[in-house]
């Protein structure tokens, strides 16, 4: 686990960003399409750890747990790697059982209720 020193604050790992370009839910599956060890060796610890662990297809939540990173940091790191094609986000599992947009609308509505 790249548990960084406690004085390394999470905002510095993402440059303060909390939003992602891609839609990433906790159960969104990601994987490394072709693993490149030289590329991995040049990454910062969190990106590297995530890149290594995503050789096996995993959900965002799983990666967060196995890499020991908060969900917020994990989402941004996944998003950044995906933007360079180093990581693939699997969209195909949506629309099969649930339409995630419908689920989200339901969730948002319920949040307003709750």
């Amino acid at each position, binding site marked *: 686990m790249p548990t*960084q*020193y406690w004085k390394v604050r*999470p905002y510095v790992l993402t440059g303060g960003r909390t939003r992602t370009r891609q839609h990433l839910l906790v159960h969104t599956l990601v994987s490394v399409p072709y693993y490149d060890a030289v590329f991995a060796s040049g990454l910062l*610890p969190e990106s590297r750890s995530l890149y290594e662990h995503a050789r096996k297809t995993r959900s965002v939540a799983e990666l967060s747990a196995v*890499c*020991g990173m908060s969900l917020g940091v994990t989402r941004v790191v996944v998003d950044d790697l995906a933007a360079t094609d180093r990581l693939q986000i699997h969209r195909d599992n949506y629309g099969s059982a649930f339409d995630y947009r419908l689920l989200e609308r339901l969730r948002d509505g319920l949040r307003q209720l709750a």
Partner: protein
Amino acid sequence: MGPSSRRRATWRQRAARWLDPTVAQWAVAPQETAPPPPPPEDRADSLWPAICEQFALRILASAYQMGSHLEAVETDEQDPERLERLYRIDHANTRIRRHAENLQVLLGRRVEDANPQTVTLVDVARAASSAIEYYPRIRVGHVVDLGVVEFAADDVIRVLTELLDNATRFSPPSSSVIVSAYVTEDGSVLLRVEDAGVGVNPDQLAALNAMLAGNAPAPVAVDPAAHLGLVVVSHLARANHLRVSLTNRPSGGTTATVLVPGSLLCEVVPGAQRGPAMTFPTEPTAPVSRPPTWNGNQQRSAQMMASPDNTKSPTRHLTALSALPTDGNPGGQARQSSTGGLPRRVRESVRPDASPAGTHRPQRLAAAPQHGGSTGGGSSPDAWPDETAAFAAGVSDAQSAPLNEGHLP
């Protein structure tokens, strides 16, 4: 959840060590203590250090307590807007902690860092960045895979914090500041902080370097506000035998360097801080067949991972801590700090001219989707800024130094 609760426990330990030492416990100290002090300004100035220390300790105690709760709420937060606010709270608290620690340093007190540990140089750079206002402008360049021993780590972080703070304040708000770490021939590590400012006035440069070297400068008009950070650096440099200096680069900008002696450095134990090298062997190496088209690549890379040359690569890409491409300013004050926005970050994280041979250049940089919608930077995302060239020139002296490993104290 495991790692975060572990981190939280560490926070609690810190908080426990920092519980306000001035708290009079009812059981042991009812109101029968010493006679009251007079209003201090009427008295000898020698009261000030004691007063300052009290305030520093009280503020530190609160800052540490806050940190523990912050970490817990940050871990769970899923809403980006709320998480951003929590980050800004964290950022403000980190700066408060820094200021209170610096006050302790100026008082000549050793800052009692709870739970000290060996810290990798990459984390030294990022911990230092965490405590400055304009952190999104910091980029981490080449950093050797070494650590700073536990009794010196926090002091080195404090030194680097003030140098990064100085560099970001005295350079254009749209420019980056690059921090890097190279091994020198005698086994020390040279930390470099390079800004794109106009450079320091030569007369002043000599005076500042004299102070940083521990030589008392000529008695001049003192402005504690302007260079308080460098005064802190000077204290800590003397205490830890660090050599700190500022130089103007001929190509423009200022470079601050810290020479960390080999006695303060150590190997990084992979399991402690470097996840992949340690944990990867326990991962199933059999490739998962989804998506099946990538199977061959995964096989190849597994073989590459087995090669020690690759896993122990001492080179680290030039990677941005990233400019903030979203709306709004981190910390509320970094008015013009983000320039390149997302495209620059993406580009730099795979920057070809700083990466070892064999790195795949990503194919789709221009197509990388914008997010946040309003990056609006000033610099062209396709041209390298001038200071990058200067940086490349500046590092060439250290780049060829052999990696001198294993300088345990």
